[in-house]
């Protein structure tokens, strides 16, 4: 039996060297497919846009998308541009809902399919009115970026309001006052986000709180799109109050984590101490 098994082992080992050339195929077939399951989807949009034959102007789009806030929130190409990412031939078919790239003046409606509240406030604002009347006012991508050239769609933050960007169209003074009005609430929300990251790293599940903050952020930033400083100032207290329970929860969770660490450290010392006592009390075996 021993010789049989050893022979089998040797027989099985022999072909290994000769099969070395199949490494590449093996990695493709085995490591990416069955290990990951059959549900791995090949995205036709990305496959085409990274291909050699793609127009260099559009080649950077997948890379830019991967850096965007949309990627972080699982918003894919077809979510905005329509089409069928599972079918390369029909990916850009109008029958499959492909809408392509919007014209400059159509960008707000394009983004507003998802950002409904923001679209409404934007259209009522000076920015929206300017675009509607002249066709040249700022649209969403003016401030938030797109996949054009080296841009990417940035996460909405107070940093978007800056002199370089705003003074492209008008003086920075009014924007600065708006930034100051937003500052404290934005700072608080930033701190909470940082707290979430730390809690997640500590293994705490905080999806509910994250959703809560996300909704408050969205509402607050919707308000900003009115570009109405007095309205922002008026409602800041309301947002502060909404953030309070989340803040309390984060603080309580941190103190709970501290308690857990101290408690388990106490048990650690208890067992270590008992171990030492047992060790000392253990008499050497009798001769």
């Amino acid at each position, binding site marked *: *039996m*021993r010789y049989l*098994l050893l022979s*089998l*082992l040797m027989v*099985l*080992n022999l*072909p*290994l060297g000769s*099969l*070395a*050339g*199949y*490494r590449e195929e*093996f990695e493709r077939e*085995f*490591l990416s497919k*069955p*290990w*990951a*399951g*059959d*549900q*791995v*989807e090949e995205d036709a949009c990305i496959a085409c846009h990274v291909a050699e034959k793609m127009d260099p102007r559009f080649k950077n789009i997948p890379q830019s998308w991967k850096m965007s806030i949309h990627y972080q929130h*699982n918003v894919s190409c077809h979510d905005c541009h329509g089409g069928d990412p599972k079918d390369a031939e029909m990916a850009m078919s109008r029958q499959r809902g492909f809408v392509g790239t919007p014209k400059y003046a159509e960008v707000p409606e394009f983004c507003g399919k998802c950002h409904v509240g923001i679209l409404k406030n934007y259209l009522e604002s000076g920015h929206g009115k300017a675009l509607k009347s002249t066709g040249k006012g700022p649209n969403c991508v003016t401030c938030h970026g797109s996949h054009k050239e080296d841009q990417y769609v940035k996460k909405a933050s107070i940093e978007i309001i800056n002199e370089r960007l705003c003074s492209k169209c008008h003086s920075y003074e009014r924007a600065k006052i708006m930034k100051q009005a937003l500052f404290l609430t934005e700072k608080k929300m930033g701190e909470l986000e940082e707290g979430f990251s730390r809690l*997640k*790293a*500590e*293994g*705490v*599940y905080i*999806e509910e709180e994250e959703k809560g903050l996300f909704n408050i952020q969205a509402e607050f930033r919707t308000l900003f799109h009115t570009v109405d400083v007095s309205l922002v100032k008026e409602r800041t207290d309301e947002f502060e109050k909404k953030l309070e329970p989340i803040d309390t929860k984060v603080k309580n969770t941190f103190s709970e984590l501290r308690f*857990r*660490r101290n*408690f*388990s*450290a106490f*048990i*650690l010392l208890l*067992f*270590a101490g*008992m*171990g030492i006592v*047992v*060790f000392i*009390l*253990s*008499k050497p*075996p*009798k001769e």
Partner: protein
Amino acid sequence: MGVGGKIRDWFDVRIGLGDFVNVQFREFRVPRNSNVFHTLGLVTVVAYMIQVITGILLLVYYIPHPDFAFKSVQEIMGSVSFGWLLRQVHVVGSSLMVVVVFLHMASVFFMGGYRKPREMTWVVGGLMFLITLVFCLSGYLLPWTQLSYWATTVVTSIPTAFPYIGDFISKVLRGGEYVTGITLGRFFALHVSILPPLFLFLMLLHIFFVKRTGLSTPPFGLSAEQQSPWTEYRRETHPYGYPFYPDFVKKEVFMGMLYLTMMFFFITFFPTLFLPEEANTPADPLRTPSQIRPEWYFLVPYQLLKLIPNKFIGITLLILLVVVFLLWPFLDTKKEPNILKRPVLKTVFFLILVMLAVLTLWGSYR
């Protein structure tokens, strides 16, 4: 006479407790040259009991359904009083148990404890090691996280390497084409109602064999008793050894404390070592993580399969290695029991240990 003495007497009169303790523990002697590795068997029993107790308590709150499993585990971690401690002890305990069982087997191998007449003890021990791994695999899916979902997808796809029956085995494990709620139900049943009694039965059988043959003497400085050929049943009584109780038990208690100290060391200083961020993300069958990797104890077969260019050969080789490992006492017919005097076996033993360490590290970093 104190209360303790009275209770002891009460039992002694009825069931002869004193006699039982004398025969089973005081007269059961351990070899004089026994070492710390001899305690690992009982440490495994302690580890298993901890897993059983914490597992039963977790079972009170856990819901084995894809819609509720993740949430119920988060409830255990966040809302149930000291639920976090139960889960941490269970999670860290599972990994430590693998380490302890492995060390036990490696030390028994090194000290030649698998040799005649202990072949059956070795085989049963080996089966227990495999069951421990199946325990880990089945328990890993239960929290229904991204990490557990995809790691299970990885592991249950391994049998597909076999022609004809591979797909069938994989489907039986998963209960369909993919890892779904049916898989969760199957793994849950396996984890809480099939494996525990099976493990307990093998453990009792293992202890029975140990009791019948006596503890093996390390071959480093052999007694005359051991050198005589084993032609009929006899128990190694170690007349010059020392009693299991109380002398050896103290060593066992010390090792038990060391085990618990290690466990709480990890819980205190590395609470996320076995529960990284992906272990806190609910399973999403439509979103494949960029890095799919099984738990550390499966990194050896995982890395080995990645290195061997043919899936079928790789898995067949793995199965053969397991068979050789289990049946080793029947394959090793050399008379010399001291591994130090067998340069080939000694080299192979250390090479395997190095290989296991390298493959584990390699698998975890790439």
